[in-house]
């Protein structure tokens, strides 16, 4: 009898996802899919709006990563007013970077403490009622306080530069609308009102050390769980440094061979295509040169660590070297190492924030530049979850006529599906029964990519929870709800 298991939706991811696993008559996995079934429509309904509204409107894609959409759209709209990244004033660039790294810091902290840590601290087989942040707070009080404080710190950075923690506005076409004050800077340095940036760095280092130790203790599971070869995509600076705000696109295969050689972000359309599937609203981006089957790439922290030559802050670079030495491999294809890579980026973000807070150019008054109007703008940044593309075209009146978004999570679509297949084949296949722990392992594999399904599908509405099991005739024989 063929059976189909459905996990709907996957919990502790941002948005609504659903997994179906098809078993044959012997209980062996025949196929599996990670479905995204929410409405997708932002690219369409932003058409007809004036270009300057885009950086504000696109923030409504998501309450978790509005800063990333704001900045990617802002970079694109800069080009429409004739300003390339090199033309932006130093103050505008540095304030945008401060906001961006505040977002990276708080988003990664959220993922580790709220979403991933329950699995790591209590185990993937722990009872469902333990696998949440409430249980972490009850049993690991200091860790939970650090998590909350770190997230708050990142959000306060965003609030300081943008006015609000969520959906604040910093960027305007060609620059930023406000500068930074010394009082605002001191708020993050003096430790009088919140823990200061040095504490954030120290805690970030401790988190990296915790994760390294965790890998030492759970070497086999973390090395093997949902490990598979794939391409990796990320942004790098001119000298190959990890770059989050503006740089060239680099992709490598599972062994490190270049498949995309530091191309300008403006040329992304020449190199990338997007596939679709009947069973998901989420697109499948891939490198044209390698085709739909082989051209997909992972994005996000693990991919960025893999593609860069170094991290341009000392403590994070030391952590990266340690990360590479741990496995003895330059290119890491193990899904669960994403958590470690993410924490290295937390440390990197804290170091960059400190550098920017000590940079006098953040107090500058040269905020907005103007150039010659263009009809097209492309903005690409490295969002917390990976490479994020915003592309707009406008008519002579400045109204948006075309919008294309390639959101980080869509790049990871194939990777998440492959991870689900791995779990299905290695954990569920031929077991004869399905436990809650097995289902959670499917979610653990997906959660490692920190997917934001709201962004990826531009979802609207509520997101219910459901799991279903089907036989080979397509008949529902079991179901689970998570709400």
């Amino acid at each position: 009898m063929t059976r189909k298991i459905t996990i709907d939706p996957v919990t502790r991811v941002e948005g609504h996802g659903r997994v179906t696993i098809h078993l044959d008559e012997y209980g062996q996995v025949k196929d599996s899919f990670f479905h995204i079934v929410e409405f997708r429509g932002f690219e369409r309904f932003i058409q007809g709006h004036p270009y300057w509204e885009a950086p504000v409107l696109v923030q409504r894609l998501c309450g978790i990563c509005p800063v990333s959409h704001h900045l990617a759209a802002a970079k694109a709209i800069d080009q429409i007013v004739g300003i390339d990244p090199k033309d932006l004033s130093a103050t505008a660039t540095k304030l945008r970077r401060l906001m961006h790294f505040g977002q990276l810091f708080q988003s990664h902290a959220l993922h580790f403490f709220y979403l991933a840590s329950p699995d790591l601290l209590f185990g993937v087989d722990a009872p469902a009622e333990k696998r949440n942040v409430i249980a972490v707070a009850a049993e690991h009080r200091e860790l939970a306080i650090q998590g909350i404080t770190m997230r708050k710190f990142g959000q306060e950075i965003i609030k300081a530069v943008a006015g609000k923690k969520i959906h604040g506005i910093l960027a305007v076409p060609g620059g930023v609308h406000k500068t930074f004050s010394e009082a605002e800077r001191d708020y993050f340095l003096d430790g009088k009102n919140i823990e200061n940036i040095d504490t954030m760095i120290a805690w970030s280092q401790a988190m990296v050390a915790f994760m390294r130790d965790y890998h030492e203790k759970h070497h086999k599971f973390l090395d093997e769980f949902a490990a598979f070869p794939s391409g990796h995509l990320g942004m790098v600076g001119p000298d190959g440094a990890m770059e989050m705000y503006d740089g060239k696109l680099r992709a490598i295969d599972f062994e490190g061979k270049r498949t995309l050689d530091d191309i300008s972000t403006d040329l992304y359309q020449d190199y990338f295509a997007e596939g679709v599937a009947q069973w998901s609203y989420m697109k499948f981006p891939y490198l044209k040169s390698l085709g739909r089957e082989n051209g997909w790439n992972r994005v996000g922290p693990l991919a960025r660590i893999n593609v860069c030559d170094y991290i341009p802050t000392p403590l994070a670079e030391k952590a990266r070297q340690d990360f590479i030495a741990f496995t003895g491999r330059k290119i890491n294809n193990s899904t669960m190492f994403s958590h470690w890579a993410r924490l290295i980026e937390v440390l990197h973000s804290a170091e960059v924030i400190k550098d920017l807070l000590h940079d006098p150019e953040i107090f500058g008054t040269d905020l907005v530049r103007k150039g010659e109007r263009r009809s097209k703008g492309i903005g690409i940044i490295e969002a917390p979850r990976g490479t994020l593309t915003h592309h707009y075209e406008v008519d002579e009146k400045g109204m948006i006529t075309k919008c294309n978004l390639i959101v980080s999570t869509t790049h990871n679509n194939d990777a998440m599906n492959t991870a689900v297949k791995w779990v299905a084949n290695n954990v569920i296949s031929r077991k004869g029964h399905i436990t809650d722990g097995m289902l959670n392992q499917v979610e653990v594999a997906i959660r490692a990519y920190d997917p934001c399904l709201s962004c990826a599908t531009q979802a609207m509405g509520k997101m219910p929870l459901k799991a279903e099991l089907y036989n080979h005739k397509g008949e529902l024989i079991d179901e689970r709800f998570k709400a």
Partner: protein
Amino acid sequence: MSDLKHNKEQLLVIGIGNIGRGDDGLGWKMADIISEMELDKVSVEYRYQLQVEDAHLVSEFPIVVFVDASKEKLPGGFSWQPCKPGDHYFYSSHLQSPETVLYLAETLFSKKPEAYILAIEGENWDLGECLSEIGDKYFQKASAFFIPHIKNLQTNTQPIQMQSFAHT
């Protein structure tokens, strides 16, 4: 800079909701009105949803009022209820209940603020920034109850006594 620091001695009002979704903006509208009063003793925050880290925020105040829209029918169009810590957990990382936030404040920061929920009945949750006729009517009623109490705080030199906020 003042907006990054709170007056932590007295009362925090948190407006919860989304002004882009019709009556879901009721909480923010109340927060707007209180914010415009610029009272020394009252801090105001806006939230689309409550999040885990709001436990830290509420732990810094002796009294917290959550103002939110309600889909449920409420006698008289609004309700004023004490709010106690509770350890229910919602699966999402970005949506927690006031009770959970208070539970985390108590568990993590050993603080148990006196807390209340002002719920205002709404009717329309579609895209758009306007309140429905019903939502606006109940907002006026809730304001007539809540705002005078808040105004009195300005001149009252005694500590705020929220227990005296009687709504029947």
